[in-house]
C-alpha cells in the first residue's frame, strides 16, 4: 500500500495536450475520484499511472519511487476496466489465479488467496463459473477481486460502474467503498458521473484541459468550488458577475449581493437548491426581483427558471416550495449570504464544459 504522486505530467496526442503539466498527490489509503468533462485528460492520467501511456514529460511516483520507464507489468498495480475485461476463456477462479500464477505464487497459497478475495467481494462458490454466466454486478465484483488478489500497491479504476444500470450502480458504489476500506488500498478512479465521485471519494480532483483546477474533500469542493467552471461542472450554479466590494458584489443594476466573508474577488456562485422564491419581498439581505419564466417538474424536485438581474437563474427545491407559484408570475429570489461562494470567473475565450 502506497500513495501515488504525479508531477509536471505532459502528454500530447498531435496538437492536443491531454495532460498539460499536471501535478497531483494521491494520499496513501485514500479513495480519490478524478472528475472532468470528456477530453479533460482524466483517463490519460489514469493510464499514465498504470503505464499504458508514456508521458512526454513529468514523473509518476508510486510509494515515493519513480516508476518512469517501468513497464505496466512491473508497477504492481491493480486495475478495473470499464468493460471489466474478464478473460472469457477462463473461469472466475482462473481470472483471479492469472495474476498470482504470473507472480509464481505456489498453488496452495493461490487457492487460499482466491477464496479470500472471492469472500471479500461476496462471491463465495462462484470460482467455477465462466464470466459469460455472470450478471453485470457479479462481473464487476470479479473484476474487483481480480485486481486486488495480487495485493497491488495501488488500485486504478476506469469508469468502474458505468456499465451498470442505475439501481445496481448505487449498490455497487457502497460495495466498492467497503472493499477499499477493508483492504486499505490507495484507490484512484475516473468517472464522468459527479454524483458517483462525491459519494465514493475521500478526495476529488477536477480536471480540465489536462490541468488540475480544484482538488480536496468532496464537501469542501462542493461548497467552495474555486472557479466558475468547477461550480458549474459539479452540480449546477447560478453565477452573478459585477464589481466586488468589501460588502459583497455590486451588480450592474445597482443591487448589492452579500457574499460569504473573507476573499471578495471574481463572481458569486449560488447553488439552485440554496435559493428560495417568494411572491412578496422578503426581509433578507440578498433579494432580487424577477419573473418566473418556466416551472419544470422532475418528481422529487421542481426547478424554476427565473428572469432576474438581466439573466436566468435556476431555483431547485421540493415541490411544496413552489406551491401557489405560476409561470409568468413576478417573484423575489433570495438566499442566505453564507450559501454563496466567491469563484474566479471564466477565462475569456475558453469554452466551459457542460
Amino acid at each position: 500500500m502506497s500513495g501515488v504522486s504525479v508531477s509536471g505530467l505532459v502528454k500530447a496526442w498531435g496538437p492536443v495536450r491531454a495532460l498539460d503539466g499536471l501535478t497531483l498527490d494521491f494520499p496513501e489509503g485514500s479513495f480519490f475520484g478524478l472528475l472532468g468533462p470528456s477530453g479533460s485528460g482524466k483517463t490519460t492520467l489514469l493510464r499514465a499511472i498504470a503505464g499504458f501511456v508514456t508521458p512526454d514529460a513529468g514523473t509518476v511516483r508510486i510509494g515515493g519511487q519513480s516508476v518512469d520507464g517501468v513497464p505496466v507489468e512491473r508497477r504492481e498495480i491493480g486495475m478495473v476496466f470499464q468493460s471489466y475485461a474478464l478473460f472469457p476463456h477462463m473461469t472466475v477462479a482462473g481470472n483471479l489465479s492469472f495474476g498470482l500464477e504470473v507472480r509464481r505464487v505456489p498453488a496452495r497459497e493461490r487457492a487460499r488467496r482466491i477464496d479470500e478475495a472471492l469472500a471479500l467481494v461476496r462471491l463465495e462458490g462462484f470460482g467455477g463459473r465462466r464470466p459469460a454466466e455472470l450478471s453485470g454486478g457479479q462481473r464487476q465484483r470479479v473484476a474487483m477481486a481480480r485486481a486486488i488478489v495480487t495485493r497491488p500497491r495501488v488500485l486504478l479504476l476506469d469508469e468502474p460502474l458505468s456499465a451498470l444500470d442505475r439501481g445496481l450502480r448505487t449498490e455497487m458504489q457502497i460495495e466498492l467503498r467497503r472493499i477499499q476500506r477493508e483492504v486499505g488500498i490507495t484507490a484512484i478512479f475516473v468517472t464522468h458521473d459527479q454524483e458517483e465521485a462525491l459519494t465514493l471519494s475521500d478526495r476529488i480532483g477536477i480536471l480540465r484541459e489536462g490541468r488540475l483546477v480544484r482538488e480536496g474533500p468532496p464537501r469542501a469542493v462542493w461548497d467552495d468550488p474555486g472557479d466558475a467552471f468547477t461550480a458549474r461542472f459539479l452540480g449546477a450554479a447560478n453565477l452573478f458577475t459585477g464589481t466586488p466590494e468589501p460588502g459583497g458584489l455590486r451588480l450592474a443594476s445597482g443591487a448589492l449581493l452579500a457574499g460569504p466573508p473573507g476573499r471578495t474577488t471574481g463572481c458569486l456562485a449560488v447553488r439552485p437548491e440554496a435559493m428560495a422564491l417568494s411572491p412578496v419581498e422578503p426581509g433578507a439581505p440578498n433579494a432580487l426581483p424577477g419573473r418566473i419564466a418556466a416551472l419544470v417538474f422532475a418528481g422529487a424536485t421542481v426547478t424554476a427558471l427565473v428572469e432576474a438581474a438581466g439573466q436566468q437563474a435556476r431555483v431547485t427545491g421540493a415541490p411544496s416550495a413552489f406551491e401557489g407559484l405560476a409561470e409568468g408570475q413576478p417573484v423575489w429570489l433570495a438566499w442566505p449570504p453564507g450559501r454563496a461562494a466567491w469563484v474566479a470567473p471564466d477565462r475569456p475565450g475558453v469554452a466551459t464544459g457542460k
Partner: protein
Amino acid sequence: MSAAPLALSGRLWLGLMLVFLYAPILVMAAMSLNASPFYQLPFEASTRWYAKLWTNREILAAAWRSVWIALAVAAIATLIGSMAAIALWRHAVPGRRLLQALLFPPIAVPWLITGTAMLVFFFGIGLDRGSPAVILGHVALALPYVIVVVTARLQGFDPTLEEAARSLGARPLTVTLRITLPFLAPGIVAAALFAFAVSFDQFVVSYFLARPGDTTLPVLIYTAIRKGFTPEINAISTIVILVSMVLMLLVARLARFGGER
C-alpha cells in the same frame, strides 16, 4: 397476401439451384461406385475403382505430394499470416490501408496470370519448377485468406483484455501466449484448414509450377482427363471433393464463415 406465391417460387428456384450445384457431383460419386468402366447403365455397385487406387503408384505418389505440400503451406501461411493479421489489427501501422489493399491482387488476378508469372519469375531466378516453387506459390495464394479469417476473429477481441493481463503483471509474451492466442485459436485453426484447402484444391498454379512427373493430385487428374478417362479418376476425384468439402465445413463451423456474425 400476394407474398406467398412469390416466396414459394423463390424457394423453388433455390431448390433447383441446389440440384444444379450438387447433381453433377453426386452423379460422379455414384459413377465411381459403378462397376462399368464406361459409365454404362444399369448401375452395378462395386468398389473396384477404389481398390485399384491403392495399386496405382502414380496416383498414390501425387496424393501424398498434395497432402504434404498442403500441410507445409498451411503451416507457413498460418504462421506468417496470423502474425501479419495481429500486427495490422494491434498497431496503427503507417500505410495500413495500402497493406490491406495489397492482399487483393493474389485473390483477384486470375490464377492463369499469377501462375504463368510465377513460372517466368522462378525460372528467371533459377528456382525452376518443382515442389518448392509450388509451395512458394500456394502460400502466396493462401495468405490473403488466412489474414482475412484471422482478422475476422480479431474483430471480436477486446484489446483491454491484453491491458488487463499486463496490469496483473504479465509480460507481453505471456499476454500473447495466455490471453491473445487462446482467444484466436478457433480462427487460427480455421485459417489453417482454409490454407490447407486452398493448396490441396489448387490446380492452376500447381499446373504451371509442378515438375512434370512429380505433380500434385489435381494436375494428375487434369492430365488424366485430357489423355482419356480412366475410371480410377472418378474414384480419386470423389475422394478429393469429399476431403475439400469436409475441410470447408470445418472452417465454416470454426469461423462461422459467410453466416451472420
